[in-house]
């Protein structure tokens, strides 16, 4: 059983330019670990400080959002095409959702380092 995993350009800095891999992972958590095994440099970027996969990373299986297919319960089928797209928001890992967590110690979100409104590290608008 093998699935084709297409990686976005944004990952390529951490994948030596690789744009896709073949994986034999059975499900999403296993696939994420497989990606991290292929590209160790990607690991710290793929997960936040709490070990959760970052909220803006989305997974699609054959054009369908994996959250509509059962998410981590979905069993990959031979020949599935898995697409990873960052920053179409939605956030599959909510604060109460630890299904993809690894060594979770806290569900607190990382602190913003710049203000979304004024853009300053030391906020000047609040």
């Amino acid at each position, binding site marked *: 059983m093998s699935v084709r995993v*297409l990686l*976005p*350009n*944004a*990952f390529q*800095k*951490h994948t030596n330019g690789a744009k896709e891999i073949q994986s034999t992972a059975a499900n999403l958590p296993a696939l994420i670990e497989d990606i991290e095994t292929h590209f160790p440099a990607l690991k710290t*970027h*793929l997960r*936040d400080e709490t070990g959760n996969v*970052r*909220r*803006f*990373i*989305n997974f*699609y299986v054959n*054009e369908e*959002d994996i*959250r*509509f297919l059962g998410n981590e319960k979905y069993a990959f089928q031979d020949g599935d095409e898995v*697409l990873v*797209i*960052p*920053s*179409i*928001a*939605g*956030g*599959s*890992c*909510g*604060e109460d*959702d630890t299904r993809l967590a690894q060594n979770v110690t806290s569900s607190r*979100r*990382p602190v*913003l*380092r*710049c203000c*979304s*409104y*004024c*853009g*300053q*590290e030391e906020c*000047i*608008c609040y």
Partner: protein
Amino acid sequence: MASSYELCCRECGRKYANAPLSICDECFSPLEVQVDLEAAKKTVTRETIAQGPTNMWRYQALLPVSENYVPQTPAGWTPLLKAPRLAGRIGANNLYIKNDAVCLPTLSFKDRVVAVALAAAQDFGFDTVGCSSTGNLANAVAAQAARLGLKTYILVPADLEAAKILNTQVYGANLIRIDGNYDHVNRLCSQIADRFHWGFVNVNLRPYYAEGSKTVGYEIAEQLGWRLPDNVVVPMAGGSLITKIRKAFRELVVLGLVEDKPVRFFGAQATGCSPIAKAVKSGADHIEPQRPSTIARSLAIGNPADGVYAARAIRESGGWAEDVSDVEIVSAIQELAETEGIFTETAGGVTTAVTARLYAHGRIKPGELTVSCITGNGLKTTDVLQGAYEQGQAIRPRLTDFENYINEIKELNELVTGGVNVR
């Protein structure tokens, strides 16, 4: 021009030089443009703005365009109208409509974001631009790209309203209908932008594009006599507009152009596609994607790119979000047209119906200065009113026939309403 501006990751704060880039390559979160407000403070005053053109480019100093950019596409500066007759219907007495149904050149607020995005596209040297769209954006990109001589590829869901398809093709754009919903189209565009060297206004140019929405907020404040309203009601598709109006208000405060005051932000969605409203109501800090099913196709984004930020902005402001049914949407389109002479598309029906509900539920008090943002024109979604009005029988061109006709309708109206004029 903006005094200076750069890209900043909305989550990890990493800064980037200006480039056609929308994703942080450290944490894969969205990037946003940050204008140097300290520098802008030295040059931007109410007077310098007033001396600018009567379009959105009067705020050019606060927009991410290059120093020598000469705007070719005057959009914005749409009317802010007091809406006493609608207010009377819904229990308000200080209600305004920001009417982007008449935003030029293509009759939606998307003309604003595209004007900025295409300025960036030219700056970055793209000769081909594109977008994924629920219709209004397609119209705006096609028209403005034609004026700038750019090649255009536009991807839309196959079931889009006929008027929005025609209003894209007429400008000579390459329109590609995709067998899927907007979220499928958007995802494909992300892949295309990775593969082709094109400027996708809402993908790799998204940080610049989104800044154009700030001009709605600047205009509201200026048209109110340089003051902020108490409440703003905003339709939500991807969720960007509501966050950018808020950003615009905060920038005006920082620049000293308006007095600081709390402004509450209210989001409006159709029940058939309400992921952001659902997050606000449940208190969730994440967005659960939905499969859209609503006549408000311009708001039918099941996985909204800025949803989490929109929900956060609403909560932080003390506002709320509501969602309304398709029946309420059509009824609200009619009500806005009948009371204020504004014919809006389905998204405006959503905003109007939600505004009415917010008053009905006491979330907005009657006397509070409230602005309801109408973002698109009803001529683009006439299909939802099919069958709503009878054609009526033609009469002969004779005065007696006309008098008989008038008497017949009077009698009919009295029969139906008991003499009371209701719709």
